[in-house]
């Protein structure tokens, strides 16, 4: 199985990605998808105008592939898509899309969740959030780290 990973410098259309994955996967049992939308309010309640997403020219895609392939193996996926925006992302626009296909729903859901947790803390993206008072670089929260760390427990996370 090929993990299909992509960094999208313009429009990310979750519906197009989902259609592609369903097309690829054939008669598998279940497909779980997660779409992240750029929030219009940040953690302090300020209005976000846009984000700028920096990435590394080579390591970012490598990190996405490594995460997707680990998920494919761990959850016996039949297909997996990970698409992440880069560049300027307007508030309200999709920023990330993850979909996983498996014979079993709980496995496909766990895979999508696992990928998203690891993307947040391990994929090489840097997010600068622009509000009326300028730009601010975002870092993972302690919740993000805790959620990602769950998957390294023996029980496979929460």
């Amino acid at each position, binding site marked *: 199985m090929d993990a299909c990973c992509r960094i999208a410098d313009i429009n990310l259309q979750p519906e197009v990605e989902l259609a592609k994955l369903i097309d690829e996967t054939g008669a598998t049992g279940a497909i779980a998808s997660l779409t*992240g939308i750029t929030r219009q309010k940040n953690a302090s309640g300020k209005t976000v105008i846009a984000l700028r*997403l*920096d990435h*590394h020219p*080579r*390591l970012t895609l*490598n990190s996405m592939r490594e995460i997707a392939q680990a998920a494919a193996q761990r959850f016996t996926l039949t297909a997996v898509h990970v698409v*992440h925006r880069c560049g300027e992302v307007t508030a309200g626009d999709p*920023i*990330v899309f993850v979909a996983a296909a498996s014979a079993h729903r709980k496995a496909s859901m766990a895979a999508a969740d696992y990928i*998203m947790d690891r*993307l*947040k*803390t*391990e*994929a*090489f*993206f*840097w*997010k*600068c959030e622009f509000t009326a008072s300028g*730009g601010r*670089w*975002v*870092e*993972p929260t302690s919740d993000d780290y805790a959620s990602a760390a769950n998957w390294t427990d023996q029980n496979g996370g929460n």
Partner: protein
Amino acid sequence: MKLIFFGKLSDMIAPSLEFGKPAPGMTIRMLRDLLSERYPQSADDVLSGRLKTVVEDRLVGDETLLDGVEVVEFLPPVSGG
């Protein structure tokens, strides 16, 4: 030797800068200390345990020697998703 900075470090220091030839025996740790002195506003981030350093697309540790190294990349904590 070229230094490349990502995320907040690209704003605090520069997207990239030419460092010159490293002194013999110089390590990543010594380079980080030096950057933290030269760019005090970035000291917390340059010295943070969460900063990753990369040479030739591989993560390298603090004791790595810089002799012959052409590019070092500095990756602060990521924030994707």
